[in-house]
């Protein structure tokens, strides 16, 4: 009886909370978001602060950072929880601040590619004239392996956050377009859409009111997976040295990229950011898997 009284939205919420992957993934993602937001308060230093006298120190090393300011040299006692890198920067602080970049890139890529993909997909699915042209272009873009396409795009612009986001969005858009288009194609055959057409509903309103709502659940699921893959691709680009430069923002990818030369003697410099990167991606993927099962059972069967 109780469940009958709940609205469909509340029922979905209930199923989501009861789903273990949504719960574990969601809690982990929330913790990482908190870490990103409260990075300055987690006993961190300026992640870009260099210190030549304390380079390449092991985890747990206690030393003195010599910082040059306008007033002269200042000595600051410091505890390197995860050791220091080749420029004496605190790896712990860089890892904590790195969460910001991963999350910003992940969310930005997901929202931009979903908005672009949704518009293009709605147009392709609804206007037969444009469909063939648009889908040929999308097929072409999809036949360039995603990381290669991202690398090619990034090589054109100067390295930095914006170019990394653009580079990851370009290969993601065709995938969203395909998804939206396939939903539109199946929805437009539905009796209520035909009824709306007969009633004289104009196309923009028809798309907005009858077609768009059907794309929401699959797009939330797809969006979660885009966040996960964007975080990985950003890390890969930055690791390879073509993404976000290490002296601009610390990111998990460029911390590992910087640490490569000294890997044999200081493997922990790669292992710490590597582990947190893996945990983050795992959490987002778990969230996505769980959301797919609870929000969109039809989509789950399609996989």
């Amino acid at each position, binding site marked *: 009886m109780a469940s009958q009284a709940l609205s469909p939205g509340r029922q979905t919420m209930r199923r989501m909370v009861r789903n273990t992957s949504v719960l574990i993934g969601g809690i982990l993602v929330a913790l990482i978001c908190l870490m990103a937001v409260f990075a300055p308060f987690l006993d961190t230093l300026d992640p870009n602060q260099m210190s030549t006298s304390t380079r390449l120190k092991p985890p747990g090393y206690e030393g003195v950072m010599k910082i040059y300011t306008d007033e002269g040299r200042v000595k600051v006692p410091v505890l390197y929880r995860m050791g220091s890198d080749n420029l004496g920067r605190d790896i712990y602080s860089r890892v904590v601040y790195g969460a910001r970049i991963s999350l910003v890139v992940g969310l930005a890529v997901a929202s931009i590619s979903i908005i672009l993909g949704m518009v293009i997909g709605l147009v392709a699915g609804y206007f037969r004239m444009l469909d063939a042209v648009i889908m040929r272009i999308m097929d072409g873009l999809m036949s360039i392996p995603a990381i290669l396409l991202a690398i090619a795009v990034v090589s054109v612009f100067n390295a930095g956050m914006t170019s990394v986001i653009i580079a990851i969005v370009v290969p993601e858009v065709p995938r969203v377009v395909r998804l939206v288009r396939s939903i539109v194609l199946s929805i437009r055959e539905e009796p209520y859409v035909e009824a709306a057409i007969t009633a004289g509903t104009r196309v923009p309103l028809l798309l907005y009111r009858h077609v768009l709502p059907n794309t929401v659940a699959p797009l939330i699921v797809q969006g979660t997976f885009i966040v996960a893959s964007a975080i990985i691709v950003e890390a890969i680009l930055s690791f*390879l040295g073509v993404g976000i430069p290490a002296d601009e923002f610390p990111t998990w990818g460029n911390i590992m990229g910087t640490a490569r030369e000294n890997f044999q003697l200081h493997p922990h410099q790669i292992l710490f950011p590597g582990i947190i990167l893996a945990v983050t991606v795992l959490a987002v993927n778990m969230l996505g898997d769980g959301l797919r099962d609870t929000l969109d059972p039809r989509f789950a069967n399609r996989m």
Partner: protein
Amino acid sequence: MGPYLLKRLLATIPVMLVVAVFIFLLLRLTPGDPAAMIGGDYATEAQIDEIRQTLGLNEPLLTQFVIWIGNILQGDLGESFFFKKQVSELIVARIEPTLSLSLVTIIFTVAIAVPIGVLAAYRHGSWIDRIVMGFSVLGFSVPVFVIGFGLIYVFSLQLSWFPVQGYNRIGNGVTPWIHNLILPALALSVIFVAFIARMTRTSVLEVLGEDYIRTARAKGQTETKVLMRHALRNAAVPIVTVIGFAFAILVGGVVVTESVFNIPGLGLLTVDAVLNRDFPTIQAVVLLFSLVYVMINLAIDLSYTLLDPRIRY
């Protein structure tokens, strides 16, 4: 089959054309002047002008595109800005390591993923199944370079079983060749094992409920034969479908793995080309990989008829 093959081959032309136009425009619309880049820092204005003439950079964009495509179709991929060599020569020299790495990765993947996928489906719901599924989520989430460095740390630095980095040409003997390839191929295969094992499990699970499996068991066929001959064979079509997708991941994985293990293949060439803004090389590598990708997808479509005689074109 003949007319279908022709039709499919023709259908790849517009796709490749889109790829070519995109790659051409992307690198032509860059802020820098390619002629100035080829000339280097010490070139005079006149020298740069000459380079511009020979490359046809003064022509309208469409003419440039036609010249470029014409050259590529004749096998002339241009000259690398950075390596000062023909791009085609560069690519040929780099193919062996990449092919070796991909091949060993595919062997590892099939050897690990298919048995554990079948086992997970056979023991559906058991702890084996749960471990396989858990591993599959994990394998998707841990980036290949993290796995690569983890393997180097354990097996090269701690145990000294394998060399830390580098590549040995197969011409120097199979043993050193495979010895250098085991760790990179293992690192690269993790994501595929995760993926293929999951696919195998799903499709075998579906097939195991079929009537002919019951019949095979009823006539006293051993369980191994039921799984291998009846279940796996019929489960093969969905597994083959994902190979195209897997190739796209493979290319990305090769770029990263070659970088981590310092293997001088096409992936490392791509990274070096991007770091040095070597546009002719980037264009050629992207075109090459895309062409292979399109061809693989074509081959997959055609292979369905071999795996499932019910599908006819």
